[in-house]
């Protein structure tokens, strides 16, 4: 990857599409500048040789004590009550009371 410009404007647009965020043209410019600055800073992680290091996604493998089994986080598989539908639908932008209503799913 080139040192000076890792992230081009098309990269910003591609990532914005993946993230489902519509950016204005000036926002694309700012975002490109910011992402390049941040990723330039992040590149220093490459100074470290991590070839023999296991990735650590969560703290739980370090926290787990001998007494706590791996299945401690799981509960019995039976249905329990959830949120009250009326309360949930009251917060919805558009609903028929049962479903959330959204615009048609048509390819852009």
């Amino acid at each position, binding site marked *: 990857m080139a040192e000076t410009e890792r*992230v081009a404007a098309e*990269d*910003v647009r591609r*990532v*914005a599409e*993946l*993230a*489902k*965020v*519509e*950016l204005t043209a000036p*926002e694309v410019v*700012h*975002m490109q500048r*910011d*992402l390049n*600055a*941040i*990723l330039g*800073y*992040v590149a*220093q*992680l*490459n*100074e*470290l040789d*991590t070839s023999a*290091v*296991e*990735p*650590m*996604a*969560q*703290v*739980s493998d*370090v*926290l787990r*004590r001998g007494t*706590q089994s791996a299945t*401690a*986080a*799981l*509960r019995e598989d039976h249905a329990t009550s959830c*949120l*009250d539908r009326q*309360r*949930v639908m*009251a*917060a*919805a*932008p*558009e609903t028929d009371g049962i479903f*959330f209503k*959204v*615009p*048609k*799913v*048509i*390819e*852009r």
Partner: protein
Amino acid sequence: MTTKVLEVELPTIDELMEGIAKGTKTAVEAARLCFNRIDEEDATIHAYLSLNREGALVRAAEIDALASAGETLPPLAGVPMGIKDVLVVDGMPATAGSKILQGYQPPYTATAVQRLIDAGAVLLGKLNCDEFAMGSSNENSAYGPVRNPHDTDRVPGGSSGGSGAAVAAGMAVATLGSDTGGSIRQPASFCGVVGVLPTYGRVSRYGLIAFASSLDRVGPFAATVCDAAKVLGVIAGHDPMDATSSMEPVPNYLADIDKGVAGMRLGVPPEYFGEGLDPEVRAAVEATIAQLKEAGTEIVPVSLPHTRYAVPTYYVIATAEASANLARFDGVRYGYRAPNTPTLAGMYHCSREGGFGAEVKRRILLGTYVLSAGYYDAYYKKAQQVRRLLTEDFLKAFDEVDAILTPTAPTPAFRLGEKTDDPMAMYLADIYTVTANLAGICGASVPCGESKSGLPIGIQILGRHFGESTVFRVGQAVEELSA
């Protein structure tokens, strides 16, 4: 002893509860005192986003009735508290400091908050914060910044700026905040109050609007170490609603808090005292360390060699996790939906564009980028590997010492607008705090001095996993030495 914060005489939790039990104080008076402070000062400070006046006074009256009837009072009876607006409470709005949740009324209550309610706390309202807890100054709130009560041209810190400022300004006896990269400890330092980062899994995250699920913690702010310890004792403990919450039993955090520090080994990592540390912060923290040495501790240099990689590691992992967690804000089930969008995709794009602020968008895009095909190994996997190295630094250090002492922040509170043009400058404000979130360990910031212009300075005390009792014990010693 009343707390001496900005000339406001709010009692400590013990003083308040003793008074309520005896009848010399009432919960209603305490709540009214806080609401008066809010009415006088909050137009300037802007710590609160919404108030729960009626609900608070009703609850306070219930507590007073229990007291008059001679009933045993629950552990936080009558204590006026504020809740950061990233924690949901049934009956109060939750915005997460964002326009995308403007008007949202959650249908349930966060476990940590429910435990406060069950303990008799009186909830005054929801506190301002950086949008989705992303920020170090509370300037990213979509509802306007919070100002530092010690100097209203300056920031209170972030993202839990409202939580820190409310305690500092006597608008609550204690508050709850959240900390993903320093968002409790840094505002505690800037506002001159105590802020606690519990071990990962110590406090349930159920009902915390998620930012980065492997880093987020819920924790207390208070004016004293004892008060913070009391609140932690109430909110901590396993919760079946949070699969990452720990089964580790919750000790009595007050049991050893007054035992003093003689004989303890306290580590000082040179990596936290290098370039970029403000000389007044260095002086205050080093003076406190010297006092702890005189009090009978052994001060041991301990190296945490991977420290300089912590901020880049954090910004890869936190943003990656945030991009996943914030995908749910899409205009479908709650929150802002952009009008006049004829297609579903258009609705997603426009709702998110319209509802999210600039910093949130920046982090979502960065997170999406580092997870995307072709970049995952170079960034995300790499950061996870460095995360393990950073964690191992701490595990090795805690074999040698009982707790680690560092400055909480490289400077005292900076001015509003000072760092908003350069995201990197803002991110570097987290340099001493992100390591604890990555490693899962606990810590606290305790006031230890002031700059010449009267700005608070905090010392950070880091403890091993589930080592909060040790952190409180050291914190209590620091508090007594600074009195």
